[in-house]
């Protein structure tokens, strides 16, 4: 077991009842990189992230985190290593943004202790980085969907973990805040050597920000590797059943996809999920 392995996943499988969702997934995740998980709706991306975060237990196979099996970690210890930004988020009843972000410090604060100076420093830093300092004392019930989502990202930042798991963390954000959060995540990877594993729906964002991509289809890893090698028109056609052009874009300074819109025969029907498959939220 190499020191350089953050996650070592071996023949992982998962099922909801009798319905298989993930099958025979083996991969390694090394520190200091930005990983993207892409694939069609219902291919098991969210489930995969839940398994990584320890929120669900695999039906078969093993996940080792820093050399130890993931289920062997107490939740609190794991929460100091992994922060999750979930896709859907309740923000409880009647908490303020500040209280929600402070909850990110929960694994760092002893049971009957009050938040210390370091906790408040992390909360301030997270609010500042996400740019929601002005929402600090607002009740979360009065926020818009996008504002709530940014508060949840700030909470994960306040958790100050070496690994960040993002489940479509920008799904309800406009382009300005989407880019802000991806830039921030990229910065955390490059400047602080943190690891980001993100479920990304927008393939252009995935191509622009990720180092490594996992293409999931029907619960299996269809293709994985560096962006330049995997983000190809061929892969997209196989995984999504969509025709596109992929090429280097000078303005974006990244590989980008262009699609043929309208019904010029460019958009084909999605492949019917045979056998495997499921729904994202399940």
């Amino acid at each position, binding site marked *: 077991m190499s020191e350089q392995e953050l996650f070592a996943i071996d023949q992982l499988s998962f099922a909801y009842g009798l319905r298989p969702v993930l099958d025979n997934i083996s991969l390694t995740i090394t520190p200091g990189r930005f990983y993207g998980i892409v694939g069609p709706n219902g291919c098991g991306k969210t489930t995969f992230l839940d398994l990584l975060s320890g929120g669900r237990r695999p039906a078969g196979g093993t996940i080792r985190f820093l050399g130890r099996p993931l289920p062997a970690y107490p939740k609190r210890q794991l929460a100091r290593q992994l922060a*999750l930004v979930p896709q859907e988020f309740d923000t409880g009843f009647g*908490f303020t943004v500040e209280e929600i972000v402070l909850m990110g410090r929960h694994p760092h604060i002893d*049971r009957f202790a009050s938040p210390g100076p370091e906790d408040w420093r992390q909360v301030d830093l997270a609010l500042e980085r996400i740019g929601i300092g002005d929402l600090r004392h607002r009740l979360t*019930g009065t926020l818009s969907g996008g504002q709530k989502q940014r508060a949840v990202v700030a909470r994960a930042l306040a*958790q100050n973990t070496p690994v960040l*798991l993002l489940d479509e963390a920008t799904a309800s954000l406009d382009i300005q805040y989407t880019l802000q959060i991806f830039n921030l995540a990229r910065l955390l990877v490059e400047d602080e050597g943190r690891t980001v594993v993100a479920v990304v729906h927008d393939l252009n964002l995935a191509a622009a920000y990720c180092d490594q991509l996992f293409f999931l289809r029907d619960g299996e890893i269809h293709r994985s590797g560096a962006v330049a090698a995997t983000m190809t028109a061929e892969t997209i056609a196989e995984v999504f059943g969509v025709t596109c052009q992929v090429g280097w874009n000078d303005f974006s300074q990244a590989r980008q996809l262009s699609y043929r819109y309208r019904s010029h025969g460019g958009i084909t029907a999605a492949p019917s999920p045979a056998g495997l498959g499921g729904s994202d939220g399940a």
Partner: protein
Amino acid sequence: MQQGPDKRFLLLTASLLAALLLGIIVATGMGYMAIGAGDILKIIASRLGGGEALLTDLEPTIPYVVLEVRLPRILTAALVGAGLAMSGVVYQGILLNPLADPYTLGISSGAAFGASLALFANMTLFGHFSTPLFAFVGAILTLLVVMRLSTFNGQISAQTLILSGVIVGAILSAGISFLKYLADEQVAIIIFWLMGSFAASTWQGTGLVAAALLVGLLVSLFFSRDLNIMSLGRRSSDALGVETARVRVLLLLTASLVTAVCVAVTGIIGFIGLIVPHLMRYLVGPDNRRLLPVSTLAGALLLLLADTLTRAVLPVEVPIGVLTALIGGPFFCLIFRQKQKARSYE
């Protein structure tokens, strides 16, 4: 930043505590035979070790009325109010549903069915304790069935818990109706018990509720910060280091134990567990570390007032469960309307 809420919390806790102590003294003096506050304090002091000398200038019946009739009833009322409000906070926190209370989970119906069964069969196997014991067993069995019904893949989900609770509760209610139908002579006893009463309160009952409340408070305060975080939903709370599944079961058992003891001792008293946490959330916010102690005190005060009203003020003794529902129901509608109006989004 926490200065404001903290000050308010301490002030509210202190005033509730003072009001509760004052309420107990005043309520003890009220009734068919009016007794002065000074005499009550003397009697309590003599019982607590002050000696018989303090009682020399009192009529001999007065200490008996205070110690054996009024105080057990008044203290039981306060403790049951505290227990129901405390369980209400915990249920609402776990089930992520502001409408959750012992009814929603079927716990009350389970206890009522157990008690009805004991009353129907004219059970005297365990003497005076038969009805409370059956009520308690009924509540715990119901909880286990509801939890079993809502467990999928080894995990309990909050939504299915409420659904299972309502289903099981409905079945048990039908069972109670059937027992009432079958019971000829005992039907009045069953109905009276179901409406809740403190009239038959004893010191044993008081002690039982006090013990359950103490355990319940300690456990729920221990996990109160976890309970805050669990309001974010299971995925988030797990990722924030809370052993959600374990804490959920533990708190559910604790709150149900307190509820079961309360229902077993006094019958069904609704709305306290629902209204008090709501009211207090207005005053101290959603943080369970403040909400739990404040709601416990407020619940005690509220049920003490309601019981004193029916015992000493109203011309007829209205069953306490009926009174709390009659006052609490409309009041709850009011809160509910205002709350919905105040929401800007969602």
